[in-house]
């Protein structure tokens, strides 16, 4: 039997990665719900429990006419949205050739670096990974969010950047975001999304 043709249902695959507490799972929720609003079949997968305690956190989101596995395989991810530079590097192998890594320009040193002998990867290490047929865009999301007065909205800001790469109407993103954040933070998150879009258009 031959299975050599990439199936027609090939999904649009997203991988969101960060450190526990950075808002990775909320961002993944929003990406999934935008897919639903666009009429796709959608699956999202993440692991709770021990992984939350300051550990590496990932969430897979897939949009397609019909999604089977909730997880993308290495080499299948179209967009890696990383909220921390080391986590971006850790999951870069998940990207397909030509895939896009959107990387929050922010470092959180893991314990083995602060109290052990490990070293945080250098920019040269990063470049050697991204040179492998990938497109890596560093987004100063932390600083841009800080300028809006609340560093925590860097996750929604990153989604603003992502949105310029996709066909989804801007209004769909804004409606989904408004439905998923507390009422008193809707305006702030909307501004963060706008700031992300502006940055995305600059990087594009």
């Amino acid at each position, binding site marked *: 039997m031959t299975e050599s043709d990439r199936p027609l249902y090939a999904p649009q695959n997203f991988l969101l990665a960060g450190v526990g507490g950075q808002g990775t799972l909320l961002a993944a929720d929003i990406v999934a719900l935008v897919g639903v609003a666009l009429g796709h079949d959608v699956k999202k997968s993440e692991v709770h429990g021990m992984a939350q305690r300051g550990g590496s956190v990932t969430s897979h989101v897939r949009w397609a006419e019909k999604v089977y596995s909730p997880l993308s*395989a290495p080499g299948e991810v179209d967009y890696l949205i990383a909220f921390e530079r080391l986590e971006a590097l850790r999951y870069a192998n998940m990207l397909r050739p030509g895939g896009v890594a959107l990387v929050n320009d922010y470092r959180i040193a893991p314990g083995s670096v602060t109290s052990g002998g490990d070293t945080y990867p250098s920019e040269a290490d990063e470049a050697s990974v991204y040179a492998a047929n990938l497109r890596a865009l560093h987004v100063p999301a932390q600083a841009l969010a800080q300028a809006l007065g609340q560093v925590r909205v860097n996750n929604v800001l990153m989604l603003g950047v992502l949105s310029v790469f996709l066909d989804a109407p801007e209004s769909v993103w804004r409606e989904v975001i408004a439905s998923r954040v507390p009422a008193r933070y809707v305006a702030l998150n909307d501004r963060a999304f706008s700031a992300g879009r502006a940055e995305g258009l600059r990087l594009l």
Partner: protein
Amino acid sequence: MKRLLSGNQALARGAWESGVRVAAGYPGTPSTEILETFAPMPGIYAEWCPNEKVALDVAIGASYAGARAMAVMKHVGLNVAADALFYAAITGVEAGLLIVVADDPGMHSSQGEQDTRRYGKFARVPVLEPSDSQECLEMVATALELSETFDTPVILRTTTRIAHSYGLVEVGPDRAPAADAERPTYRVDPTKYVMLPGNARRRHPIMEDNIRRVAEAANTLPCNRIEPGDRSVGIVTSGAAYQYAREVFPNASFCRLGLSYPAPTRLLAEFAAGVERLIIIEEGDPVLEEECRLQGLPCEGKSIFPLVGELSTETVYDAALRAGLVDEQPWRAPVARAPQARDLPALPPRPPVLCPGCPHRGVFATLRKLKVVVNGDIGCYTLGALPPLSALHSCGCMGASIGVAHGVALAGIQQHNVAVIGDSTFYHTGIAALLNVAYNQSRTVTIILDNSTTAMTGHQQHPGTGYTLQGRPTPPADLEGLVRVLGIQQVHVVDPYDLESVETTLKACLALDAPSVVIARRACALLPEARKQYRPLRVQADKCIACGTCRRLGCPALTKSDELYAKTGKPKTVIDPVLCTGCEICAQVCPVDAILFRNQLDDSGGQA
């Protein structure tokens, strides 16, 4: 409209739609959100129990009394509840009895990856396996119908990837409120429900006959289905493995089993007859494979696909490619295999750690200093085993710490040893073990880390918190009183943020010739009340001698400074004000008082 629901949320919705009236469980990843989602729904009762054995007894009681009931637990919880599973299998039920068991292949948050489907065959209890959120919802109804038709409890086995993956779900109609109002009469039937040997002897053949009838029905059950395709490869699969197999073999013939025990013998034989090569793809043990072999169907399964760990599209593809079942699928060539990335040094890992301000840190820092052997237990505090604290030396299952520590003490080792157990874990299965320590009077020091919650699984209530799952206030268990009444006379309460009192108390207890309990009481730093007390501390850089003592506490808020100490050239410490809670443990260990205590800080975070 379809809703995006996790497997756990869909299960809860399915239980509500299907008229489950009583639900009980104990939190455990990846099952916890099922009862958390179910508890606020109208017309139902749901509770956390001290452990899974109690929870299953509660669900069995509700079923005996005529109410549809559900017990919820993670895979290792069923070990605790196994006694109840086996008697319920032999008595059968009055109303539908569903046992939801969440396995954790790959051990994302568990000590083992045992395959719950084995319990089905062991106890003669049918096992259903959903493959996505929609099936989680639908299979609750299937399970309850099977339970009532065939007079048996039914296990619904999920896995981490089913429980915590979200998919679109077509929900059914809301539950009819009338169904909630009925008050059943308890039907007395001793020959069915009193398992004296004489009655049990009569029930055993009935149980065997019931499961044979389920096996017959399995051949036509809609959740067991053949999906015709290319006949050169026929795949028998179940659960999450079905999804991965579908990705790798888009054109093959499939026999998808929703009921994985008992196996549908005629359906499998018919499927096998129509394909050239029969391939079994299942996560965990070769359960379906063994069933096929028992029927004399030549097949391949674990000789190709991994026995250990979680499956994925990638592992299924790699194995299938090696076995010549598929041609190369070029789009699956990972970028990591590109030459540029190969020479990269290993990335520093980011394992879970004790949070900033975690009260357990003070106890583990002291245990490390005292160089005692620590027999630990299951909870956040198991992370005390990791460097730089490295102060926990055994951890097996819920409640094991105290019995193991007692045994270690009896063996007569050179060092002192202690048991460390959390509050929720103590209520779960620690009480009987502490009773044993008191009864047999070993010198065991038991440290109960009382952070007033079930922290690891996300802050669930327990008998000591004063609230139930549904938010009803209840008298909290008196932990000191409970420990005393078990026969422990030496009971001390300390604040784990006060290192001196922790050390003094532990030293005093280790010197005793009698059992003792030290309760280290301080709420989890992530609870809302604790968060209100946060006050980030500051290192006075001019005083810091870069000795690294504070950083060896393993607190994520303490990091290396860019500033070096001139004498040694080593980095000083800085405190991340976003992460620091102000627990002052680091300030207490600093040998040169370079870290300011809360009362030394002025309003701007400078020195008062």
